[in-house]
């Protein structure tokens, strides 16, 4: 079991991710935007953050800037949940410390839970450059 934070403004999607990860036995919390996410991480440090980019109030990139991962939170792994066509934003997110990104429309729930499990079970010893796929 691990602590996972979902940051996603689309309630239907965050609910689906919540169900999938909860089913895997994780302790899952949901924030609707970057601001809520900052409040939640201050209370309790998650191991994995699934982060949407385009959100009202505070988007994913601003969250990453304020969160200052990996400098301040080396044990947390951030995965960007992106949409097709966001290449430039994604690159900025990776530059700000996100470990990798997944394209929402291309990832099945199973792939998502496998990814989270892998991130938790395996030690991410070295951050590898992530290819654009």
């Amino acid at each position, binding site marked *: 079991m691990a602590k996972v934070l979902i940051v996603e403004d689309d309630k239907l999607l965050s609910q689906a991710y919540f169900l999938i990860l909860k*089913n895997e036995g994780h302790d899952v919390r949901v924030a609707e935007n970057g601001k809520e996410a900052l409040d939640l991480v201050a209370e309790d440090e998650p191991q994995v953050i699934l982060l949407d980019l385009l959100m009202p109030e505070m988007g994913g990139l601003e969250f990453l800037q304020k969160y200052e991962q990996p400098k301040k939170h080396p044990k947390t792994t951030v995965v960007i949940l992106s949409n097709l*066509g966001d290449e430039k934003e994604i690159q900025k997110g990776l530059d700000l410390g996100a470990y990798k990104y997944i394209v*929402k429309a291309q990832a099945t*729930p*199973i792939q998502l839970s496998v990814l989270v499990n892998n991130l938790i079970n395996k030690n991410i010893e070295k951050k590898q450059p992530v290819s654009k796929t």
Partner: protein
Amino acid sequence: MKHPHVLHRHHETPSQLEQQRAESDALFASIGEGAIVTDASGKISRINQAALDLLGFREKELLGEWFPGIIVAYNEDGEPLEALDRPIVRVFMEGKPITRKMFYTTKSHRQFAVLVTVSPVFLNGHPIGAIEVFRDISLEQEIDRMKSEFISIASHQLRTPLTAIQTYAHLLASGFKGALSKDQHEFMDIILGSVDRMNDIITTLLDVSRIEAGKLSVEHTRTNVTQLCKTIVQELRQGADEKKITMVFDAPNTPLYSVTDSLLLAESYANLISNAIKYTSELGHITISLDVQDEGILFCVKDTGLGVPKALQDQIFTKFFRAPNVVKRDTTGTGLGLYMVKQIADTLGGKVWFTSREGRGSSFYFWSPKRPPKNV
């Protein structure tokens, strides 16, 4: 003199000649679009009111002036057009009408978009000048830009609910809410297959609107083109296998490298190969090859498919164009794939072309330079 009335028509009296001249002047002046006539050396000999209004000149300021000299033109990238590239000059070399979009500059140095058609004027088989008709297309261009923006916004908005449909359908399909029967699985596969197709359409629409808005980012990296092509062939092989099509990649012996945008190149190759698969019947053949040619890499995909009807061959790279022989078979395409490939070829400083015989098959070629040209 059996037909004096016929002869009479060639011997008009001076007053009749004047009348005819006045009529032809009135006709010319009334043309609703800008019209300029030049002599064989490109000097302006006639100009109508619409042209004067659009360009902001007075008639006496333009008559007798060398057209490319006095009316400055720019191409769609905002670079000044050399006299040799101006339709009014080219038309004498090509001897046939030329139509193109460009920008004209008014007397007060304001630029505006125009669509120009220039035709050579012949008398007794000799060119004696040219006539140019042009109109202001700023409004059309603005509407086109708004349309691209609309497509982009609409696609973004469609994607969000589509992702929810897809995610929940996957949840059901994976037995998250209980095991499905065989029939239910089949239906879920149909739903997910359709969602995939819709995602592809949205991606293409977004790509098109980005390329039209000039937002397509190009990143040149050293790319192993042989490997890139091999990967695409592997990814698309399943589609060919399902139709029992023999698909062969005739890979060069040594890897070919190129400094290019690997994503855009991959998109073009994938597009051309999947078209070949889509439009080739069962048991057909597809051959893919890569060669070095003219400081670049020539990709070729040859199929035994439907082919492109001869009469429609010059329209195939046009946006939303789909040939009737293709629509009959498959109603799902967007008509944007080859348009995208053409746009990418232009962006990379390359070329795309094809040869085809209807019912026999097609060969599509995509040539891209080994190093990016300076202005790309």
